[in-house]
Each structure stands twice: as structure tokens, then as C-alpha cells.
């Protein structure tokens, strides 16, 4: 899969820009603040219906404009598909596939598949568990779209269960009785059902990622220690989970909810379940979080994205790879190794401030980014 064309109207700093892209490596060079990341952010939005930098849509629309439009032509198996998104904060976003409007925005998901590595990804290693859960769940949904539905159902049940616990907690604190908890068993049943489905997906995914992350980390790190990852459950004694069937996971989750019932009622919230789980990243024998240096953490985050890319490719999904500001952080040897890893990709979008940082193998098509324009220079 590759992006053949990208056109932006009132997206970030661009009043209007159109860029023709090529297969293989495409390198965007420009001084900081010129709008390089904005280009990959726009494509990332098409792929995930969200920005990797901001949680709301407002900052994506050019200051002073009403709405932003992202239009792109994606080629897959020699067939071209046009995708158009209209982003208008305060209103429902709109989308077109081909020439026809879609009824649900989520129909756009899958039309462009992209793995993006950006400096913000340092949070995968240093940030809250929620960052790592999002990494897993996004990848899960890319491979099997049904998990978008499973996750949404899980979140809804969790919200209801928490509302019930919260109401009872507040009633008790107000000096009254505990309130009516008679439906808690019911919410347990449903939380365990969707939770087990989600868990089974995550566990299988982590197992597939383990060797790929180790391999990618070896390539892009300075070479000390090896990267290991494991799933940490909030609902087992030591956090470990044996690979179990969905039915078994469901039973285990229900037992865990039973066991923590008293403290959940006490605290007024759901304390166990996949929404509290984490992905533990270790380097040699120490956890990456808190111990790894800036460089190591950064390499680890990059390895997580490269492993995701590798996994999707091995399953016949050839996503677009975007590497935002990556090469400046790497020494010469690691630059070459990274270039080698991605050299046969169908399309890699690279942004950099200094062109010399990008290894020769990845020079490909070059673009200059500046003054709200993108010019092809070779």
C-alpha cells in the first residue's frame, strides 16, 4: 500500500497544499516548525481518525478557518482509492470513499493503514500504562477490526459498573445505606465476557510481538541488553497470565471481580480488568520505565513501532511507514541498520531537518518543506 497523493486545505499551517508521492522512501526536509510533521499527522488522521499529537480536532484546523479537508489517493494492489475527510470542530466530521459519502466514519478505517513513529512515542516507554494499552488495542484493531466493537462494549459496561459503584459509595459517604448493588453481579458477567475477549486478543498479540520487538531493538539500540515484553494483568497475584481460552479467561476475570468486590465497593470503582492492565517492558533484567536512559527509552519506543510494522507486513497487510524526526536521534551505525530494516517497504515517509542525517539507502524522492509549501526536489 502507498499514498500517491495528499492534498490539504486549511489543515494546520497549510491554507492549501498538494503533494504527489512515490513508492519507496519519500524524504521531507525542512527547518523546524515548517510543517513536516503536519503532513504525516494528516495521513495518520486518515488512518486512525485521530491525531497522534492532540486529543481534540480544533488545533488541526488552520487558525481562522472553519474546517480542514484532507484528501488522499491510496494505491493498494494497483487500485487507487480516494479518501476525503472533512474535519469541522463542533460538528460531525464527514468522509468520502471513492466518490461516495460514508454513513459511518469508521468505514474509513482500514482504507489507509499506516504505522507512525513520532517523538511523542517516547510516552510508550515513559508514560502511563494507558499509553501501552492504547498501543496494543490500536494494533489489535488494525489486524482484526472486530476489536473496535469489543473495546467499545467493554468501555460501556465499565462505565455503567463504575456509575453503580460510585452511586453506592456516595450514598454511604453521605451517611445513608450502601444503595442498591443488586445489579453488580450482572455487570460482572458482562465485564468478564467482553474483558476476556479483549484479553485473549491482547495476549495473542503480545506473544506475536515478543520476538519482533527483540529483533527491532537489537537493530536500533546501541547494543546493551535485550528488549523483553510481557503482559501484566491487574487481576492476578503476580501479574502473569498463562495463555488461556476465552472461556477460561472469562472465569478467571469473574473470580477476580468477586475477590476484589469488597475493596471495589469500599473505593467506589472497578479495580481489576483489562482497563487496569499494562505491558511491562524490560531491558536486560531491569524495567525500561524508570531505569532506561533517554536513548534506550527512545530506541525501545521505536522498536515497538517497528515490531508493529513487521507484524502487519508478515500478515500480508503492507502498511505505509512514517518516521517523524527519527534519524537525528541515531548514530551512523544505527541509522544504517534502521534503513536496512525498512529498505524494501512499499512506502516510507521520513521527515528530517538535516538531510545528511538520512542514510543514502533511504534518500529516495525528496521534498522541501517551507513557507507553507511542499516542493519536490528530486
Amino acid at each position, binding site marked *: 500500500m502507498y499514498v500517491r497523493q495528499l492534498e490539504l486545505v486549511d489543515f494546520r499551517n497549510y491554507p492549501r497544499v498538494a503533494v504527489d508521492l512515490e513508492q519507496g522512501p519519500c524524504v521531507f526536509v525542512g527547518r523546524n516548525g515548517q510543517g513536516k510533521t503536519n503532513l504525516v499527522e494528516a495521513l495518520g488522521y486518515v488512518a486512525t481518525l485521530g491525531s497522534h499529537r492532540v486529543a481534540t480536532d480544533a488545533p488541526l484546523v488552520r487558525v481562522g478557518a472553519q474546517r480542514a479537508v484532507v484528501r488522499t489517493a491510496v494505491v493498494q494492489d494497483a487500485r487507487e482509492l480516494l479518501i476525503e475527510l472533512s474535519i469541522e470542530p463542533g460538528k460531525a466530521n464527514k468522509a468520502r470513499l471513492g466518490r461516495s459519502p460514508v454513513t*459511518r466514519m*469508521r*468505514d474509513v478505517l*482500514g482504507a489507509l493503514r499506516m504505522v507512525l513513529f513520532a517523538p511523542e512515542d517516547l510516552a510508550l516507554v515513559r508514560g502511563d500504562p494507558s499509553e501501552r494499552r492504547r498501543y496494543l488495542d490500536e494494533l489489535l484493531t488494525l489486524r*482484526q*477490526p*472486530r476489536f*473496535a*466493537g*469489543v473495546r467499545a*462494549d467493554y468501555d*460501556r*459496561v465499565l*462505565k*455503567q*459498573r463504575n*456509575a*453503580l459503584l460510585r*452511586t453506592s459509595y456516595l450514598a454511604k459517604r453521605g451517611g445513608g445505606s450502601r444503595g*442498591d448493588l*443488586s*445489579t453488580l*453481579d*450482572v*455487570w460482572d*458477567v*458482562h465485564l468478564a465476557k467482553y474483558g476476556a*475477549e479483549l484479553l485473549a486478543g491482547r495476549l495473542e498479540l503480545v506473544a506475536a510481538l515478543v520476538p519482533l520487538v527483540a529483533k527491532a531493538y537489537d537493530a536500533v539500540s546501541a547494543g546493551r541488553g535485550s528488549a523483553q515484553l510481557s503482559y501484566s494483568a491487574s487481576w492476578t497475584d503476580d501479574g502473569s497470565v498463562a495463555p488461556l481460552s476465552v472461556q477460561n479467561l472469562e472465569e478467571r476475570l469473574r473470580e477476580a471481580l468477586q475477590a476484589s468486590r469488597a475493596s471495589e465497593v469500599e473505593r467506589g470503582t472497578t479495580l481489576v480488568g483489562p482497563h487496569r492492565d499494562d505491558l511491562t517492558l524490560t531491558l536486560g533484567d531491569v524495567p525500561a520505565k524508570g531505569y532506561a536512559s533517554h536513548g534506550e527509552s527512545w530506541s525501545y519506543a521505536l522498536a515497538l513501532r517497528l515490531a508493529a510494522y513487521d507484524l502487519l507486513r508478515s500478515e500480508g497487510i503492507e502498511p505505509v511507514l512514517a518516521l517523524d524526526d527519527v534519524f537525528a536521534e541515531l548514530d551512523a551505525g544505527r541509522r544504517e541498520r534502521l534503513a536496512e530494516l525498512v529498505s524494501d517497504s512499499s512506502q516510507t515517509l521520513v521527515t528530517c531537518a538535516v538531510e545528511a542525517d538520512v542514510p543514502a539507502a533511504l534518500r529516495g524522492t525528496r521534498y522541501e518543506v517551507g513557507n507553507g509549501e511542499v516542493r519536490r526536489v528530486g
Partner: protein
Amino acid sequence: MYEGAIQDLIDELGRLPGVGPKSAQRIAFHVLSADAVDVKRLASALQRVKDLVKFCTSCYNVAESEQCRICRDPRRTNEVLCVVEEPKDVVAIERTGEFRGRYHVLGGAINPLEGVGPDNLKVRELMTRLSSGEVKELILATDPNTEGEATATYLALLVKPMGLHVTRLASGLPVGGDLEYADEITLGRAFEGRRAV
């Protein structure tokens, strides 16, 4: 902001479900420019719905007398009882022409976020109806969403000791639709949840 009566109307309309401020304003000005006769008819329909429509004392469906049309119909069986959330669900199932039993309208679904628990629904009334022993099959036809599913599970657990035959409507892929037109989330989940035939 307008003055007096017209703003009062806009405010009242704006409190209706699904009516935003823009629509409320449009409807209000439509009413203002409409024939006095038409407006009288609308006003009287609004009045009458509160004065005349009551809830059936057996099934809690809307009714114009003590009991609703369905509960009064002697040709229907008392052995099958279908539990739904709202009167509009009764209408939907009636349109299928498939069901010859009676209904029980809960008046909503369990929804802690909105402060709705079993006590706010016609659950106790359902248990009273079931205690007569006449009902052999209980169909749980609550909505196929989080709250409807939870309500169905709650009722299933509650009536378990009674030894009834309890069923739940099938959901998933729309029958009569083409597999290729189902979106990948729906199709993916239906595939995962496949069962032996």
C-alpha cells in the same frame, strides 16, 4: 432571545428529545405562521394524550382503557410472555406478525449512569405476573445494547429459580442482508460468535 410567548415555546420545544435549539426555533416560527385551526388541533392532541392515554394495568403498555388492546384479546396465549423496554418495541414486534403471546413493558432498561435500577422498572410487577404459573416461556426482548443486555441477564438470573423456559432474541447479522455489505466489525464479531447448526 425573543420576547415572551415565542421564546417560551422555543424553550419548551427545545426540551423535547432530539430537538436542538435551531430546530426548536424553526418549529416555533412554523407554528406562529400556521393556520389557527391546525394549531388548535395540535394543542388538543397534546392535551388529550395526557388526559386519555393511560398505562395498561397488566402489561404497562399504553392503553386507552384499564387494559390495552393486546391484553384484552382472548385469542392470544398467556403461556408466552415477551419482555420489552418501551411501548414502541411492542409496536415493532406486533408488526412482524410473529408473536401471539402477551407483553410486559419494563419502562426502560437498567442504566446506572442515568440512575435507573430494577426498582425504577416494572420488575416487581413482572415477578407478580409470573408467580401465577401460567407463563411457560419468557422471551427477553430488551434492546441489543449494553443496558438491554444487562437487563436481560438480570431478569434471567432473577427468574432462574422458577424453572421457566427463558429465551433471548437472536442478534448479529441482519437476515436478508448480503454478507458483503456487513461492515467488518459486525461481520468479524458474528464470525467469532458462530455456533453449531
